[in-house]
């Protein structure tokens, strides 16, 4: 698709409402910006505190590369000197450097999906490009962070991540906004490409505030024997988020696992989903969500498994825990099989903390609050078997921190 064709398609879709989530008037926001490169030591102390809250290490210890973007203004992109086979750079720079990259742009995600993708294309954007070269096993994670500080502003990013054939790539990413920001919008398009025999894990922790709307548009394409694992935790209040990443398993024995943890607070509305399209022989996967709704929060947990060829296998779990009378959880599991011998299963539960569990723990000397907190912690614990232990810890720590403040 040429650049002008893309613009044309985007133009045609620029008023198309999204299937899910409250509609946002994009004209209320200011777009644009021309990000300048910066070095790690140029990050202000306040910004350091903010990004570190979502797990970004400004000392860059234990990571193979880093990318941080502040509004649409400044960008940090760094690869550890000794790290071979890894590329981390602003997408604008990557698109200039590699002609072939335009084939990846709006390939996994369609530019005319809805008004958010359309507008994202029509406005100027930046974002990150991260690639593991063929055969390169990059064990230490690449860290990325997107920070939004300006008011009435739309942060518009487009990310492309590629794990080339036989490679291994781990990304840990955090998005954050200071608690003082008023009414802002984050549009994030992310396209993941996992090639033959490659593995990619993507671990994301979100920390927004009550005045921020977030509309990520993500999709992945996984080829033969490829593995894609996405773990997502949103633990802060937000005005609204609607996200529904879609994974296409197009190669034989491709596998994908999508985990999400939502801890709902205040008046926030979370519409979180995950979709797996099993298109190739032997492909398999899981979509697992654990949601906890407190205060007046509302959580919609969607899951969608589509089996298109015989013998594919996938599992969907949406488990919700209601901790407040005025909170709400809706679980929407969808299984769609259009071939013989497809094996899809789901489990959806929504409930409150069980009295029998509480009584049991209290009989071991815990107070009611301690018992509730232990049950909630256990419930929300994400156990993604393919996640490197360090990243599992990142998620665990973020969850624990939130629960300590919340319970």
């Amino acid at each position, binding site marked *: 698709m040429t650049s002008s064709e893309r613009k044309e398609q985007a133009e045609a879709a620029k008023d198309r409402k999204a299937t899910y989530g409250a509609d946002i008037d994009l004209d209320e926001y200011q777009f644009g910006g021309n990000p300048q490169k910066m070095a790690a030591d140029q990050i202000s102390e306040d910004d350091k505190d903010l990004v570190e809250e979502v797990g970004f290490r400004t000392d860059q210890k234990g990571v193979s590369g880093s990318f941080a973007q502040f509004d649409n203004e400044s960008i940090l992109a760094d690869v550890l000197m000794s790290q071979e086979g890894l590329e981390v750079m602003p997408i604008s720079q990557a698109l200039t450097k590699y002609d072939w990259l335009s084939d990846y742009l709006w390939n996994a995600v369609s530019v005319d999906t809805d008004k958010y993708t359309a507008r994202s294309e029509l406005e100027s954007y930046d974002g990150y490009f991260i690639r593991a070269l063929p055969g390169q096993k990059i064990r230490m994670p690449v860290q990325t962070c997107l920070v939004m500080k300006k008011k009435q502003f739309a942060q518009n990013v487009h990310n492309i991540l590629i794990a080339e054939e036989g490679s291994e790539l781990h990304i840990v990413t955090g998005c954050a906004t200071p608690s003082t920001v008023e009414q802002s919008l984050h549009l994030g398009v992310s396209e993941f490409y996992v090639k033959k025999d490659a593995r990619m894990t993507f671990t994301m922790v979100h920390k927004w505030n009550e005045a921020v709307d977030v509309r990520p548009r993500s999709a992945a394409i996984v080829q033969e024997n490829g593995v894609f694992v996405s773990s997502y935790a949103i633990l802060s209040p937000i005005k609204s988020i609607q996200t529904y990443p879609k994974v296409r398993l197009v190669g034989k024995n491709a596998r994908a696992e999508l985990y999400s943890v939502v801890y709902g607070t205040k008046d926030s509305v979370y519409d979180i989903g995950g979709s797996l399209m099993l298109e190739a022989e032997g492909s398999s996967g899981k979509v697992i969500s654990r949601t906890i709704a407190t205060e007046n929060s509302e959580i919609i947990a969607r899951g969608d498994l589509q089996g298109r060829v015989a013998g594919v296998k996938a599992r969907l779990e949406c488990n919700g825990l209601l901790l407040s009378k005025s909170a709400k959880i809706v679980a929407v599991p969808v299984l769609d099989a259009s071939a013989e011998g497809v094996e899809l299963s789901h489990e959806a539960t929504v409930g409150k903390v069980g009295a029998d569990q509480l009584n*049991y723990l*209290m*009989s071991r000397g815990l107070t009611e609050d301690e018992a509730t907190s232990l*049950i909630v912690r256990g419930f929300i614990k994400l*156990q993604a078997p393919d996640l490197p232990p360090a990243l599992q810890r990142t998620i665990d720590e973020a969850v624990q921190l939130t629960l300590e403040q919340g319970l």
Partner: protein
Amino acid sequence: MYMTPLLEIQDLKVSIDGSQILNGVSLQFEAGKVYAVLGPNASGKSTLAKAIMGLPEFNITSGDILYNGESILDDNITERANMGIAYAFQIPPAIPGVRFDDFICRICPEYQCKEPEGHFMGKACSCRMELYDDFERLGISNLAYRDLNEGFSGGEQKRSELFQVLAMQPQIMFLDEPDSGLDYDSLKLVGRELKSIREKGTTTMVVISHHRYILEFLEVDVVYILQGGRLVYTGDMEDIPVLAEKGYERFLSEMKEAA
């Protein structure tokens, strides 16, 4: 001289969902002794233990429970547990995401790690090592890293419950059918463990059971038999073989006649 018993039940009436299960039970448990609470199915044995533990679905409609001479009816489960009352559940609920070994360390001060975090550079704390040794003694090493009660077999549930209750070092423990579903080897393990507690003499043990093996092995001091929500017989060890031979119905009717 009258010694205040550790736990005294006075004319206790208990109902669940409006139907009365205990119809006025009075009995006592003295410090350091071993009791068997026996009786046919649905006689109220478990209800008695659970009401003493304070589980809220057991509604006490009249009577009193005195612990060291003071009523504990206003104390909740946590408070009763902290006073030294423990109850080993027959069917404990699963708590997903809470590892068995972590949980034990949480509830038992003696297994808690006293060293600051990060002190061990990947090595386990000595309290943990002790814990794993103790797990081994009860044959539950395989449970250490599993989620609490999640998918535990009947025998594993019994041993895990017993382990937890013992580790809490209570004043009085209620063991609700600690021997059901155990194979011979596990039965011996559990029996030996209980026997060693008895020999220390610091804990009152109340065993609810249908089987004579554990009771005889433990050499119980007092036997209480409940029937229809009432205490119908008080005896000792010597009654157990007779009971096993005759069954409750015949045993109790013969006792009635003799009286």
